[in-house]
């Protein structure tokens, strides 16, 4: 299911990145469409994380151009990428264990009420909005519960709810299923479906072949800093992707 006629939300052309003498990325072109789930696969050192960090604004590309929602963008800091609507769910989820679910969702962009010169936190509004977001994600998570008491799936829901707060148009998830149980993997995959239903583009960075084939519409394979394949999921197979990742097959 690719919306070929729709405009891509993210378009990379000729992206390259050098760290000193090391060429981490070379001439990467790719497009991501709204409501599409794209799997980004590759072995360690293939350039996946560099690519993600460039899109997320952690690094500036040495070459090439990023277009987001039709216009060229230049990110100096992660906050710039977030402003235009790119959110990242980090592998370790970046949650503060000692705070509540609602506090984590709103971390760094708290809702406030004015009392004269004072701006105090609006706990009620934040909890209500967080509960709404958890509901959209079908997660049984209470806004006032502490994150340290939560299961892996709930924590994932909190991290993803954070991206829904700003109505992100592209969510990148870095290894979201790496360290959680089978049942929780199911929950995370269904969370990805929820995002997709709402027209959000998702980039799933994962080592787990079954997960990629379960939720992705398209898979992109990176190897040695270059894009080696970009195929609709139903035109490929786990075996072919494995061959592309390891280099047994050069390109497809």
């Amino acid at each position, binding site marked *: 299911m690719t919306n070929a006629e729709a405009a891509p939300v993210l378009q990379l052309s000729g992206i390259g990145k050098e760290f000193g003498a090391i060429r981490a990325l070379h001439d990467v072109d790719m497009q991501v469409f709204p409501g599409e789930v794209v799997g980004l696969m590759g072995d360690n050192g293939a350039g996946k994380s560099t690519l993600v960090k460039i899109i997320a604004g952690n690094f500036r590309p040495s070459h090439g151009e990023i277009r987001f929602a039709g216009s060229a963008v230049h990110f100096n800091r992660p906050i710039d990428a977030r402003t235009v609507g790119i959110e990242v769910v980090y592998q370790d989820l970046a*949650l*503060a*264990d*000692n*705070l509540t679910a609602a*506090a984590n969702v709103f*971390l760094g962009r708290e809702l406030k009420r004015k009392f004269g010169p004072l701006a105090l936190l609006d706990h009620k509004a934040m909890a209500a909005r967080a509960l709404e977001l958890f*509901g959209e994600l*079908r997660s049984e998570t209470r806004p006032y519960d502490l994150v340290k008491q939560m299961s892996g799936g709930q924590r994932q829901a909190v991290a993803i709810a954070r991206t829904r707060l700003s109505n992100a148009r592209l969510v990148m998830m870095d290894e979201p299923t790496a360290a959680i149980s089978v049942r929780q993997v199911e929950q995370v995959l269904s969370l990805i479906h929820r995002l997709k239903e709402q027209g959000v583009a998702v980039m799933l960075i994962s080592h787990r072949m079954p997960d990629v084939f379960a939720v992705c519409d398209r898979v992109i394979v990176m190897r040695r800093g270059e894009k080696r394949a970009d195929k609709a999921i139903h035109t490929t197979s786990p075996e072919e992707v494995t061959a592309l990742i390891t280099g047994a097959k050069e390109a497809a």
Partner: protein
Amino acid sequence: MAMQLESPVSFSNVGEIKWWRRGIFASQTGYVLLALLVLMVVMHFASPYFFTQGNMQNVAKNFSFIAIATLGVTFVIITGGIDLSVGSLMCFSAMITSMVMSGLSTPGMPGASLFVHLAADGKTVVANLPGLILVVSIVAGLAVAFLVGLVNGFCIAVLGLSPFVTTLGMLSIVRGLGYVVSNGRGSFPGGPDADYFYALTSGDVLGVPAPFIYLVILALTMAVVLHHTSFGRHVFALGGNEKAAELTGIPVVRVKIEVYVICALAAGLQGIIISGWLGSAPANMATSYELNVIAAAVIGGANLAGGIGGPLGAIVGCVLLEVIRNGLVLAQVNSYWQQTLVGVIIILAVLVDRIRSRMT
């Protein structure tokens, strides 16, 4: 891909945590508060003098003398840092305040001509509003505290030095500076405004000691700041997961500098108040008070690993330390036991919390 419709979220698998297993009831602060109340009841039966008005005033005054600094250190501890320089800073701020006060009140000293002049009969006359010298000297004492806090914060947040090492160095630097400016002699608040100074620092209002009133106001302010402002939220987030705080766009460097400045200002204010009670600022004042302050914060439930703590805990810790000291005196126990007992309580308080968190 078609998704099947699911029932609304039901919370069938996720129970609600019972009220007695969360908030203050499940915190070290709660247990220590309970222990404190039990201890006070025991004291009441052990000594008829314990609950007398005079003794209560005494206790309130004595714990207020470290509690304001404990509030400040609690801010730092919540972010996962530590400030060892508070003891030295108490002394230095107090010293600067009393030196400025004496200096500005003595005709002929630099700057003094703006504030006082000699009358024809040789008496010193205030040239300006009464109380102005007091305000200027307290501002001077707090300004040096502000600077010290800024340097601490800069070294820790911007240069990335460890809080322990930075503030250990600052402990020595500030104590040394105290000896340098005073030549080791200590200084006395003097001049026409000294009476106001003593009234503000060691006086009382309707029997309530002034330091206790400041403490209550500051603790309430701290509670609001920690739990109802985004700054407070960021302080907790920083202690919970600094990397997450950074990734979510919290201005980590600014928040860190701010907590060290708050801590230094609290220590400075505390030092100024203590000097009013002592009637002077000797060069060895408040030596090793940083340990009492940190001990009180930790007993009250602040976690040195960061992320947990609050004003109630800080005060409960200070009160417990003072009640024990007071109790040992009333029970005519050799007062040298006090330090040993405090050490035992620090370990016990943390141990009880560890056992409790293992059980749940």
